[in-house]
């Protein structure tokens, strides 16, 4: 049992010694031999009082060269140090990560010259990188100052190792090394001292970093992969951390290894499905192996290099590399390289395609059979029949032209790929082999070819008088009808239409004959006043032959703007209107005849007199027409004109053969038809004349009242059935005319005088008869008639004949009364007034009749006008007796002599009344009046 324990202890101890701890003290010696140069040192002088020289000494050293400081002249010094301030511990051999604990120093020194005795101080020191702070503890100098005396080389190693201040222990700390030389000369004018130093040694004690891996290694066999394919577990890449002995070694701290490739197209993953991309693989302290997965889309030529590099971690790890072969994948693309481009295996096309011109042949630069990453598959060879797609047919249907039989060698086409594209477009070209491998090319712009023709688009239908609506433009095109969007040409405009005008501005303003293409096109503004169909407009390049014509355009009439009336004998021309003079048929042809119907045609026209017979404005169907604006008039017998009844039916703008009858014979007649519902105003027809129809009756007329004994005219007018005067149209027949009156004889028996009506009395259809009637009466008529057997006759209206003027003649007007009267007694005087033909003068105002008599009297004048018998009366009384004469004076009213017309000279009735005045029976005589002779009557 004890033996077992001992054996176990031995084994344990053996393990302890065989596998020592990673952490242990170590040492490195850093020697500065100055064998070939100054080794980066420089001289820092602190004092120089004589002639000083110093630096690297070529030709003396131990064994080769050295550094020195020298001074000459009496009692002079050359003090300073050789300094190097760019060294890290690691530069001096300390492993990275190690901790420097202490440093021991030594150097070789030689007193090369000392002509006269003096004292020198030679030592070595360590300062920080700024050369200001001593980094040692337990002593300032690495090797304290020493006064060399030997002319031979001797090693100075007096001081023990000095500890390094903890602030400067890291292996990457930069320190400054000083080789101090304070050299002095002796007390003699020729004194000189020269001290040389060589083989400055730093024995650096350090504690190395814990031991870990020193390298990273790809442990897998070299892989050959396919571009774009994840290597997966079958071809996994493995990186492993190993120590110097190639033993898998865990890192001493978390360590990141970055895996890259010199391929420009690799992606590194951490999973076997290549879904989690990363270049960094992190190792914990308990792992030393990682699987690396990769997809590289770029084929190698011949290989790419994978590199694993430590990017973080405490251990010093050298990179690991491995070559990897990436082969192109299966052909999946036929890559077209167009003019202006170049193809690079693995990259594809570069450069911009240059524009092509429609119809111009060019060569596709190449076709490359590649995998999905533009890696050329060199196995694709032989003659292939290819199919192209992408570019379209030209607008005129011309298809693109390609080279379809193509030979390939090592994945690259070798045939000249002549191509012609005809459609102006920006497109891509795709070529396939049996429907496979299609891959769209870069975009290529096909510019249109040179100007060849114009596309002229004019919308149809249009409306007369209105600027064309819709799309009306011109586009420049090449031979294949591609639009030339940069065209600047000028075109001359022509048309086969009538009254078509081109304009330069919207709304048809500014007439023009030319358009200039702007961006290859121009907008046309067109208007025509003429309704028409089948017209076209043509654009022809000014100075060239290139041309283009629109399709057929229909110009419909505008909206009905007027109703024209075509009278008999007139013409209507579509687009012009009514022309010619009316010519009616019938009795009064070419004039219209009263009472005789005639036909008119109504034409609905637009503002340009186009018959509105088509298109959306077609004026058709039943319309409500008014003829009230016609100049027609009622006949003299009040018969109104006869117009068509409503509704009036229009067919394509026309309502023909409408019957109208005018009854009023007059000039300046018109027919006007207004559509009151739509509405459309009518235009008055040409004026025309309506003449009287044939004679039908006589119009007999005389003004009334008339005056007895005064002649007046009675007219006899030949008239038609509607009492229109025939005027000169009347031809009086020969024969005996009827001419009578109902007038009676005057009271004095004087008969009416009317004469006879004869043919010759008629002039222009009118006969005027002067007649004189003597009897004051009313309702007198005159009758005229054509000679028998004509039935043309006429009776005048009633004529009233008033009495003539008061006749002064005593046979006509009288003054009557009693033969005698007593004094102072009123006696009535009766005045009877008559005209010459003893027609009583009624209604003579009382004031016009003035009584007068022999004096002494008192007269009561008539107080009422004459009655129907011409009688009025007054009263007179006399205060004296005797024979008295009563007279009547007529004032205001006309008083004539017996001829009926000559004014009476004295204004008195010729008739007087004589009356005798007597005393009344009761005469009282007072006073001394003496009565003589005579007798008293009536007492």
């Amino acid at each position: 049992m004890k033996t077992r324990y001992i054996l176990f202890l031995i084994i344990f101890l053996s393990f302890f010694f065989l596998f020592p701890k990673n952490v242990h003290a170590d040492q490195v010696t850093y020697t500065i031999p100055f064998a070939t140069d100054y080794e980066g040192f420089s001289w820092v002088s602190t004092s120089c009082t004589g002639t000083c020289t110093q630096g690297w000494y070529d030709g003396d050293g131990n064994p080769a060269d050295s550094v020195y400081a020298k001074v000459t002249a009496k009692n002079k010094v050359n003090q300073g140090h050789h300094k190097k301030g760019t060294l890290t511990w690691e530069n001096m051999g300390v492993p990275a990560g190690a901790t420097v604990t202490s440093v021991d120093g030594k150097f070789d020194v030689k007193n090369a010259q000392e002509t006269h005795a003096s004292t020198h101080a030679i030592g070595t020191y360590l300062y920080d990188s700024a050369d200001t702070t001593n980094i040692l503890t337990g002593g300032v100098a690495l090797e304290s100052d020493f006064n060399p005396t030997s002319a031979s080389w001797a090693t100075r190693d007096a001081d023990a190792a000095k500890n390094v201040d903890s602030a400067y222990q890291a292996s990457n700390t930069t320190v400054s090394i000083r080789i101090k030389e304070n050299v002095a000369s002796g007390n003699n004018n020729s004194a000189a001292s020269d001290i040389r130093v060589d083989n400055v040694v730093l024995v650096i004690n350090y504690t190395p970093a814990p031991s870990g891996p020193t390298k990273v290694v790809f442990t897998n066999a070299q892989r050959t992969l396919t571009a774009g394919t994840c290597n997966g577990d079958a071809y996994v890449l493995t990186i492993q951390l190993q120590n110097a002995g190639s033993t898998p070694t865990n890192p001493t701290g978390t360590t990141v290894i970055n895996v890259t490739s010199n391929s420009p197209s690799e992606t590194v993953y951490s999973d076997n499905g290549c879904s989690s991309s990363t270049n960094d693989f992190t190792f914990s302290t308990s792992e030393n192996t990682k699987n690396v997965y990769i997809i590289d889309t770029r084929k190698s030529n011949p290989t790419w290099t994978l590199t694993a590099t430590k990017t973080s971690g405490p251990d010093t790890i050298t990179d690991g590399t491995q070559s990897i072969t990436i082969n192109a994948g299966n052909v999946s693309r036929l890559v077209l390289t167009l003019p202006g481009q170049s193809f690079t295996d693995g990259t594809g096309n570069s450069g911009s395609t240059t524009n092509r011109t429609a119809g111009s042949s060019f060569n596709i630069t190449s076709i490359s059979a590649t995998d999905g990453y533009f890696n050329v598959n060199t196995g694709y060879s032989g003659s292939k029949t290819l199919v192209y797609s992408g570019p379209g047919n030209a607008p005129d249907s011309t298809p693109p032209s390609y080279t379809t039989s193509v030979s390939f060698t090592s994945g690259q086409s070798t045939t000249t790929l002549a191509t012609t594209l005809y459609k102006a477009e920006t497109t891509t070209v795709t070529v396939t082999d049996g429907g496979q491998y299609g891959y769209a090319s870069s975009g290529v712009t096909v510019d249109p070819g040179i100007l060849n023709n114009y596309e002229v688009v004019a919308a149809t239908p249009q409306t007369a008088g209105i600027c064309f609506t819709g799309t009306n433009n011109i586009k420049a095109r090449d031979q294949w009808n591609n639009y030339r969007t940069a065209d600047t040409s000028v075109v001359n405009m022509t048309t086969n239409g009538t009254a078509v005008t081109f304009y330069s501005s919207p709304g048809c303003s500014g007439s023009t004959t030319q358009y200039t293409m702007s961006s290859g096109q121009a907008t046309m503004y067109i208007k025509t006043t003429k309704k028409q169909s089948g017209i076209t407009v043509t654009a022809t390049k000014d100075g060239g032959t290139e041309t283009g014509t629109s399709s057929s355009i229909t110009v419909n009439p505008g909206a009905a703007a007027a109703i024209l009336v075509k009278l008999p004998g007139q013409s209507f021309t579509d687009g012009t209107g009514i022309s010619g003079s009316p010519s009616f048929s019938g009795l009064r042809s070419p004039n219209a005849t009263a009472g005789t119907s005639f036909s008119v045609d109504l034409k609905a026209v637009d503002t340009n007199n186009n018959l509105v017979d088509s298109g959306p404005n077609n004026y058709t169907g039943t319309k409500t027409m008014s003829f009230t604006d016609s100049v027609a008039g009622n006949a003299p017998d009040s018969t109104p004109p006869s117009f068509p009844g409503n509704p009036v039916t229009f067919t394509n703008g026309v309502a023909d053969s409408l019957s109208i009858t005018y009854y009023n014979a007059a000039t300046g007649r018109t027919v006007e038809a207004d559509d009151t519902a739509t509405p459309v105003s009518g235009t008055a027809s040409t004026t025309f004349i309506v003449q009287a129809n044939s004679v039908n009756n006589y119009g007999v007329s005389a003004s009334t009242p008339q005056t007895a004994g005064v002649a007046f005219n009675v007219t006899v007018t030949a008239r038609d059935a509607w009492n229109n005067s025939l005027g000169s149209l009347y031809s009086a027949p020969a024969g005996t005319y009827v001419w009578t009156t109902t007038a009676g004889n005057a009271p004095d028996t004087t008969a009416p005088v009317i004469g006879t009506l004869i043919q010759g009395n008629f002039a222009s259809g009118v006969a005027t008869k002067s007649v004189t009637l003597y009897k004051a009466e009313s309702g007198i008529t005159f009758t005229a008639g054509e000679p028998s057997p004509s039935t043309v006759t006429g009776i005048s209206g009633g004529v009233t004949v008033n009495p003539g003027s008061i006749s002064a003649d005593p046979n006509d007007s009288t003054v009557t009364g009693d033969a005698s009267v007593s004094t102072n007694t009123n006696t009535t005087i009766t005045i009877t007034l008559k005209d010459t033909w003893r027609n009583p003068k009624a209604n003579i105002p009382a004031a016009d009749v003035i009584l007068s008599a022999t004096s002494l009297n008192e007269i009561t004048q008539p107080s009422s006008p004459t009655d129907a018998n011409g009688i009025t009366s007054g009263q007179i009384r006399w205060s004296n007796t005797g024979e008295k004469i009563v007279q009547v004076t007529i004032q205001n009213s006309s008083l004539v002599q017996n001829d009926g017309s000559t004014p009476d000279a004295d204004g008195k009735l010729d008739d007087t009344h004589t009356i005798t005045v007597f005393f009344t029976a009761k005469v009282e005589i007072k006073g001394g009046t003496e009565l003589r002779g005579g007798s008293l009557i009536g007492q």
Partner: protein
Amino acid sequence: MMKITVIFILAVFLSLFIYRYYSRTLNDNKYIAVVDGEGITRQEYDKEVERVKKFYLWSKQDYNRIASISAQDILDHMIEDKIVAVYAKKKGIFVKPSETQERYNAIVGDNEKEYLEKLSAMYGTGKDDFLKKVEKDILSEKVQKLIGQSLKTWITEEKMNYKITIF
């Protein structure tokens, strides 16, 4: 001495006035328009009018109805062409004879004789006139390319910047 000087100065001014008056009259007779100092001669204008007139007659148009409109259009376009030419000159844009010839060849193709005969019938012009037209077209296209916008739109705006005199 003073008097002589005054008379001399007056004589100079009078001479300048007379010269300007008569030279102006001559210019007015020679040119129909001037664009930035570049004249359009009446002879050129009349030739254009006659050319276009022939075209419209060839096209069986009622030329009398459009004669005045056409004449104005022609002058407008000649002025616009002159603006393009002046601008091109300023910018150093030129059309090489080879460019004109190349375009000409492309237009007439293999039917030069027939093409020129048709031109003659339409406009009464010959090959030289047509080559000038072709050259003008190419120049317009080059200017349009330089200005980077529709030439017509540009001309409309550019007219404001040119001194245009129409006699």
